[in-house]
C-alpha cells in the first residue's frame, strides 16, 4: 500500500560470493528513488543479516548472490525470518539465478526474484508496490 513513509532497505551479501557491484548499483538506484539503504558488506551469515534487519527495522531485505548458492541460502533465510517473526519484511533475491530456480525461490516464500540483467526500474517499482508498513496495515 502507498504511504509517504521512507522505505528502508537492507542489501545483503550472504555466503562467500564477492561480486558486489550489482548490489552497489542497486543501492545507488534505490537511494535515487528516495529509499534509505543499508549495505552489509561481504560474507554475511543468515543470522547476521536477520539481526541487522531487526535492529534497523527495514521494510525490505535484498540478497545478492552470483555464486549459485541461492537455493540453500534462501531456505535458511526464510526459516530464520520466520523464527524471528519478521513477517512483514519483503524479501528479494537477485544475481545469477537460472529460470527454473525462480519458481523454487518463490515457492519458498521469496517475494521477488530479479536475475542479473533485470531492469532497475522493475526492482524499485516492485518494492514500491509491495512493501508493507506494518502499522499502517493494522
Amino acid at each position, binding site marked *: 500500500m502507498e504511504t509517504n513513509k521512507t522505505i528502508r532497505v537492507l542489501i545483503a551479501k550472504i*555466503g*562467500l*560470493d*564477492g*561480486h*558486489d*557491484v550489482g548490489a*552497489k*548499483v542497486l*543501492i*545507488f*538506484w534505490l537511494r535515487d528513488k528516495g529509499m534509505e*539503504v543499508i*549495505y*552489509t*558488506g*561481504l*560474507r554475511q*551469515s543468515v543470522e547476521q543479516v536477520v539481526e541487522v534487519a531487526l535492529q534497523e527495522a527495514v521494510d525490505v531485505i535484498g540478497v545478492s548472490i552470483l*555464486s*549459485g*548458492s541461492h537455493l*540453500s*541460502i534462501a531456505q535458511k533465510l526464510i526459516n530464520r525470518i520466520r523464527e524471528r517473526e519478521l513477517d512483514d519484511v519483503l524479501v528479494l533475491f537477485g544475481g*545469477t539465478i*537460472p*529460470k527454473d530456480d525462480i519458481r523454487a525461490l518463490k515457492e519458498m516464500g521469496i517475494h521477488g526474484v530479479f*536475475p*542479473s*540483467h533485470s*531492469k*532497475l*526500474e522493475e526492482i524499485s517499482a516492485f518494492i514500491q508496490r509491495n512493501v508493507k508498513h506494518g502499522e499502517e496495515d493494522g
Partner: protein
Amino acid sequence: MAKKTGEAEVRPVASILGTPVNCFYGPGDLPNFDYAEKLNDPGEYPFTRGVYSTMYRSSLWTMRQYSGQSTPESTNERFKYLLKNGQTGLSLAFDLPTQIGLDSDMPLAEDDVGKLGVAVDSLDDFERIFDGISLDQISTSFTINATAPIILAMYILVAEKQGVDPKKLRGTIQNDILKEYIARGTWIFPPEPSIKLVGDVVAYCTKEVPRFNAISVSGTHIREYGADTVQSVALAIAIAEVYIGEVLKRGVQIDEIAPLFSFHLPIGGRDFNFFEDIARLRAARRYWARLIKEKYGALDKRSLQFRFSTGGMGGGLTAEQPLNNIARATIYAMAAVFSGTRSLNLACFDEVYAIPSDLAIRTSLRVQQILAFETGVADVVDPLGGSYYVEKLTDEMEAKISEIVEKIESDGGIVKMIENGAIQRELARQSYAIQKKISSGEKTLVGVNRFKVAEEERDMEIYKTDPETKNRQLRRLQAVKESRDKGNVDSALKELAAAARRGDNVIPYLFEPLKARATVGEIIDTLKEIYGTFREPTTV
C-alpha cells in the same frame, strides 16, 4: 562518410576519453609521426606492434576456456575432454571456499562447496585433478589469488610425484590479490601481508619455476566492476608496480622478475568499442616498455615486453536473446587478436545464467578456431598498425594511461585507495552511470533496450551442480583427516608459522604441511594468526 553541409546530419560520437571522434582520419592527425619511435617493427622496442616479430605465424594464441567443475574427478574429465577437442591450455577455477582458504567442512563454506569451480581441501584433491595428465605436456592457468602460494606448492608437488622437473612447468598463476579487494572479494589477510605473499610466489618462481608466469595482473575484474577500458589497463599497471616494488625490496634485480609478469586484460563489455579496446592495448605495450626501461632501468628485452592474455567480458553479454552473445564474443575475439593477445578466454553465451554448459564452452572454442583457421585475421602481425585512426587513438590512450597512473601515485598510491575504499566507490559509481545510460536508452544494447522480442528465449540447457558434490567432498576430507598423522601436520604447521613470523619466504615451508596432508583451511588459519584478517570498508 564526410558530407557537405546541408547534405546530411553527422551523428556526433565521443571516445571513452571524452574527445570528439572525426568521421575519418588522415596524415594531418599524425604530425611528425616517427615510425621507429612510436611503433618500430613487431618484436622491437617499444613493442607497440607486438612483443614478437612473427606472432601468430609462428604460434597461434593459446585457446583457453575457463573451466572448473565441482569435484576433482569431474574437473579431470573436463580437462581430458578439452584436450581431446584441441584446446591447447588448461584453465582451472576453484570454488569460493578454496579461494578464501576455507575447508569444505567449515561452517562458512556450507553453501559454496564445489560451486563455480573445484573444491580443493588437500593435496589428495590436486593429485586427482591432474591424474593421467602429464604436467610437462600442458600449460595450466590457475585463477587463484589469496591462496595462490598453496596452489603453487601443490602443483610443484604433483609434478615431483610424476617425476617432472618443476623447472619444466608452464602456465600462469593469477596471484594478483590487490584487484580482489577492489572487485572480486576473495581476500583473506590485510593488503600488506597479502602483497608480501604475492612477492613470495614471484621470488620463488624466479629461481625454481622459471617458465611459469608467477603473476597475472588482472584488469578484467576491475573492468567488470565498472572501470572503463583505459582504467582497466592503467589500474592493472599501477597494481603491478606495487608487486614489483615488493620484490625489488628483497634485492632481486628488475631483469630477474619483469619477464615473469603477465597481464590478463578485458576485451569487450557493455561500453565496448572495438578500436578503443585495441588501441589501449597497443598503447599499454609502449607505455610498459618505457616505464620498465626508464623508471626501473631494465636492460633485458624480455623485461620490457608487455605480455597479456585477454578475457572476453561476460559483463557485455546479455540474458536477453542469449545466442546474440556468440556474435558479441566473436567480435571481442577479433579485437583480442588484432591487439596481439597471447591467450584468449572467451565468455560463453549462457554464462549469464550459470556455469557454462559443454555446448557453450565448445562454441567459444570454435569461435576462436574459426578466426584462427578460416579467416586470415592471424596472418599478418598488427594489421591495423599505421591506420591513421588507430595510431591517433593509441597516442591518446597512452597519454591517458600515463595520466591515471600518475594521479594514483599523487593521491597516495593504490594500496591506500583500496584500503579506504575510494577506488571501489568510484568504479561502482561508474558502473551505475553505464547502467543508467542503458536504462534510458542513451546507450544501445541490442535485444535489451532495442530490437527486443516479445517472448524471451531463456530455455536452454544449463549446467547444474550435482547436489551430491558436497557430501562426496566432505567424505573425502574426512578420510584424509583420519588417515594422516596429526602430529606431523602440527609440527609442519609450526615450522610454517615460525617462517612467517620471521618474514621468510613461506613457499618452501608449505611443502611439508601439504605432504603431511594439512588442509588449505589449516594452513590459512595458521597464517591468519600472524597476518590478521582484512576489514572491508562497507561505505557505499
